[in-house]
């Protein structure tokens, strides 16, 4: 709610970069607290416009977290404040989660200009996009120049997360063979940059050659594939350079604007579904259905639904 003194204070502190206010704000949004709407509406729009949301995705073990750590080092050299949202799955059984991505970024643990937030998928199909997107904007409003969204990127909800990003890098490593084959269908199509990590390992050259087939334009082939050894920092400066170059291109050719518009729609739909779902669940308990067929019952359930909101 606008004018809510608690929200106003939180906004003031988080815009000043206060780590607790920032963390608290993300929790409010993640837990879908009533204050979230007013809080998100009050964020510094200029900073949100200027941030680069970088999606980092790839199979488990490819070195995403290590590469994130190396990118943080490179970004901090340029004096940028950085945000990281590391997404891991929740257990579908208990709803709990074990979030350990921070371990690979501990080098930056005492640097308050590096904001790391672990986020669990909380077993929901929807809602995650809304939370992660909002968290990225909160980090941007606190002054982050780049927000890295790190996720496995397999499965529908995670694919949606990838699509929230302004720019996406797919991280691969030699020795994954079949996994990469399996990924080709979905994720390769949305990746702007391909990173062959662990490039000092056997098979890296072959992987790079395979990846070259993704891009048809020889210039893109040259510029969109990077080789890194993240734990040594090798190739990371070049990667960051390419990321910023591509960001510049996307900003001037309207691509970034188009993607923001798409993620706006994605998040809006996500919120809408979250809002409606609670109401539907409630109505479900009190409705006597004439049909025993779920598809027809669903029609009965949503009939006249719009009026309830």
């Amino acid at each position: 709610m606008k004018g809510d003194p608690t929200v106003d204070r939180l906004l003031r502190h988080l815009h000043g970069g206060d780590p607790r206010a920032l963390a608290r704000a993300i929790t409010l949004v993640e837990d879908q607290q009533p204050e979230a709407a007013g809080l998100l509406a009050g964020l510094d729009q200029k900073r949100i416009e200027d941030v680069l949301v970088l999606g980092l995705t790839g199979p488990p073990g490819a070195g995403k977290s290590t590469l994130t750590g190396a990118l943080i080092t490179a970004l901090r050299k340029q004096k940028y404040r950085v945000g990281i949202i590391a997404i891991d799955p929740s257990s579908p059984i208990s709803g709990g989660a074990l979030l350990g991505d921070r371990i690979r970024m501990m080098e930056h643990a005492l640097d308050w200009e590096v904001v790391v937030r672990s986020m669990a998928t909380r077993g929901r199909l929807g809602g995650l996009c809304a939370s992660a997107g909002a968290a990225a904007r909160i980090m941007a409003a606190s002054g982050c120049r780049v927000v890295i969204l790190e996720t496995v990127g397999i499965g529908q909800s995670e694919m949606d997360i990838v699509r929230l990003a302004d720019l996406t890098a797919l991280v691969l490593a030699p020795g994954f063979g079949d996994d990469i084959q399996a990924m080709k269908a979905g994720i390769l199509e949305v990746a702007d940059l391909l990173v062959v990590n662990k490039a000092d390992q056997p098979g890296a050259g072959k992987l790079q050659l395979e990846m070259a087939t993704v891009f048809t334009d020889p210039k893109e082939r040259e510029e969109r594939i990077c080789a890194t050894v993240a734990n040594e920092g090798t190739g990371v400066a070049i990667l960051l350079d390419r990321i910023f170059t591509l960001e510049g291109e996307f900003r001037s050719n309207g691509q970034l604007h188009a993607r923001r518009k798409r993620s706006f729609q994605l998040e809006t739909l996500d919120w809408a579904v979250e809002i409606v779902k609670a109401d539907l669940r409630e109505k479900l308990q009190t409705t006597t259905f004439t049909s025993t067929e779920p598809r027809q019952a669903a029609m009965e359930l949503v009939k006249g639904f719009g009026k309830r909101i």
Partner: protein
Amino acid sequence: MKYRVLIGKPGLDGHDRGAKFIARALRDAGFEVIYTGIRRTPAEIAAAAVQEDVAAVGLSSMSGAHLRLFPAVVDALAQAGADDIPVLGGGIIPAEDVETMRKAGIREIFTPGTPVDTIIAAFTEACKMQRDRENNEG
């Protein structure tokens, strides 16, 4: 309401089976557990607790350095402006140290043989109190 907790091991102590066991038990009880791994400084643990907005911090020590390290985490949290986040601890801790630790601001101490349900209940209670207070303060 989902509770987020941090499980960490301060100091030079690589024996992490206990910490990992508790982390998994809490996950299976529905908590979101941020695991920060071994050999952390108290300041690193406090910074992670703040950034992750956890409702409680759990520490494990097998090396005998708990008398120094657990209170150091409590102090580091206070320095980071987060003295409201409760600290719980466990490990190879002699019974005679329990009272000293409590006085130093550790909310609960779990000595060897504590049933896991007791630990989960203690975390639930600690998280509930922290969140309730935070919501009341706004």
